[in-house]
């Protein structure tokens, strides 16, 4: 289990993370989302042990990831920009990984063939997408207990995204925990089971994605007379839009209870629609007054 408690981090006068706490169970695929500068990469760097937090601890299986280098044997971090020294090849990095981790060479060779990566070619001749593939494959072939992916799909073409998503989903099925940050919320939605929204260094909202999506719904209602917003004061409205006698609302709350409450206002028509992860993110941000 990954447990982060009261993480705080400042870069000079700028407070990047404030009191961030997370608990991610084994086998979960956790989507970390937020606007640019929200602190996603910093949080991932702290979890991976690259960066020391000013306050709080990150424990993977009750071991500190910063202080205890050996716990990082079960942790793989793929940053948003991979670094490979000039002149090095996949083979030279693979050799390093083989000597540091329980590296699955047959699996790696197979993936390299699948993703058309020449292990002896130097990285200088690789495109951004190829470097990205290589970095992800190197990471998954150590069979990590925790995989951290920053800007997971950056530079990858759709087919490669699909294949990598499948690899991660399979490994999560085997008990691997993945924390994935991405701006592609539609893709995260397809295989994340939990999520966290970071905003200005704080966790704005987090939890089980399905539960959260059930908790927030879009309601469209039409009334005989033009309704006023005051009519819905008893509801937790995240977004309100009216056009004549038709009202569109995003409301937080148990679907049946909200529906029953709206029915009491005698609408001519009432539709309930589920929200996507992307919409959920946007409504959460809007409801906190953050402009996107």
């Amino acid at each position, binding site marked *: 289990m990954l447990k982060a408690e009261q993480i705080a981090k400042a870069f000079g006068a700028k407070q990047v993370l404030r009191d961030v706490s997370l608990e991610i169970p084994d086998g979960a695929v956790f989507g970390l989302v937020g606007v640019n500068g929200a602190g996603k990469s910093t949080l991932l760097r702290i979890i991976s042990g*690259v*960066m020391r937090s000013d306050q709080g601890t990150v424990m993977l299986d009750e071991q500190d990831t910063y202080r205890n280098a050996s716990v990082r044997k079960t942790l793989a971090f793929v940053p948003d920009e991979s*670094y490979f*020294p000039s*002149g090095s090849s996949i083979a030279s990095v693979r050799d390093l990984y083989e000597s*540091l981790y329980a590296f699955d060479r047959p699996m790696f060779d197979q993936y390299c063939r699948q993703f058309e990566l020449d292990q002896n070619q130097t990285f200088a001749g690789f495109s951004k997408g190829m470097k990205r593939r290589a970095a992800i494959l190197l990471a998954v072939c150590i069979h990590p207990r925790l995989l951290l992916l920053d800007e997971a799909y950056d530079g990858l073409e759709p087919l490669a995204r699909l294949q990598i998503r499948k690899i991660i989903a399979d490994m999560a099925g085997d008990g691997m925990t993945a924390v994935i940050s991405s701006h592609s919320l539609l893709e995260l939605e397809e295989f994340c089971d939990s999520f966290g929204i970071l905003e200005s260094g704080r966790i704005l909202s987090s939890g089980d994605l399905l539960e959260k999506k059930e908790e927030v719904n879009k309601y469209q209602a039409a009334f005989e007379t033009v309704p006023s917003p005051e009519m819905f004061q008893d509801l937790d409205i995240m977004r309100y839009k009216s056009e004549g006698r038709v009202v569109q609302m995003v409301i937080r709350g148990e679907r049946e209870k909200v529906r029953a409450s709206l029915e009491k206002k005698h609408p001519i028509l009432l539709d309930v629609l589920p929200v996507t992860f992307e919409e959920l993110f946007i409504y959460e941000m809007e409801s906190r007054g953050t402009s996107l």
Partner: protein
Amino acid sequence: MIRSYFRYLLRSRRTLILFFLAVYLILSLTWMTYDGVSVPGYGFYTSAKMAAALSMGLTFVLPVLVFSPFQKRSGCDQYFSLPISRKEIRIASLLAVFSVIFGYFLITVTAAWLLFGIGYVPLTLLLGIHAFMAFSVLSMCAINSYLFLLGNSWIDGIVILAAYTLLPFAASIGEGLLISNLMAGKHALALETHAQILSPVYTLMANYAALISRNGWLYMKFSLPLFLLSILYTVIGWFGLIHEFDERRSERAEMISDHPLAYPLIIHLYSLLCLLVICSSCISSHDPSFLILLVLLLVCFVLGQFLYRRRLEISWKQAGIFLAETILCLGFCQIMWSSRCFGMADRVRLDEGDTLVYEYSRLADEKDLGRGIIGQETDHGAYVSFQLEIPTDRLNEYQEVLQILEACRKTAVDQWYERRTHELSGYFQISSKTGDRTFNQYHFNPDLSLSEEELKRISGYCDVVVDDFNHDLEPSEMPLAEFLKLRSTW
């Protein structure tokens, strides 16, 4: 873990290592063949010297290469997330750099010994050279890695490394100029400065040269104080590196290099050095160009701040600090001038070295050799000169001339601090000598001449020569007594 990372470093940079090896061998072998075949043992000496120079050069290049990933955000992400501690990365990196550089040296110098040194260079000396170079390489790698890591980007790291490496030599030049501007009789070029001992390269290579000199090609002594200084620098470099690397905050990568020992200190050290030289020149000569130099230095200060902060601006605080530094330096130089360099200008030791040497040369009136004349009046002038060498263990026997010459020196010092013009042609020089080494040199061009009576007394201890070039005498140079006798016939 250390072995894994060590092996990775060497393997991933195999091409570069082979390239440097080729360069190293080509350069060393080229020098090895220079007179190496015809003069026994010389080939070994030149190659050992060249190999040491190249090794020292590589101790600057390779630490930059292995530690530069940690000054990039992506490099920190890549390596600090590996299951290897920072301590292990540091040790493996240093070991890799050391192995490459010392490996090159070992191969080259051993080859040179086998080709040109057997029979001329003892095996024990060869082993000694290897042991000392192993220490030197390790020391320089630790120091240079530490200095490089003070920067937060590889460019800043290189600038900081270069600035600290050059600082002792810049300080040495500054020391020479400051003393020559404020101390009577001292000339920058003839000064023995001491600031270079702040350089680890100097302390190591001075002793390395001394070690090599044992084969008879150079005559230098191994200096224990310099060796102790080398150890001190190594300890500072080692612990500095531990602190800078093991405790490094990875968020520093690619930020401005605001470490207290990085730009903030370097800019002020160089500014102070330049200010001291400019202010001493101003105090010494009352030269109005002082202001132009000061403005130029201010521009350099702003450029330094630009390099540091990536912004071309100067705040009131920085301008205030610069002004305060200028006032401080002006005040310090004025105190040095007023106190005659804290009394050092008047405090001269005559008994240092084996020999005390006085040299005098003056264009004088041929009718009165005690009256100096200026260059334009040469139609009735004659050059009077002498070089008096006094063994320092027999100073008592020379008391008579010492009184005359020391009085002359005192007058020369007084005149210098009174800023009296020095139009007379000639000079008055004092120095100490031990073997071929000349030190404690004082050079004056005073507005005074020794009287004929004094010259006569001096001629009792050494040859005082008069060169009367206006008369067609053959030869034109003659001893003082002969000249005086001849003159009495005119």
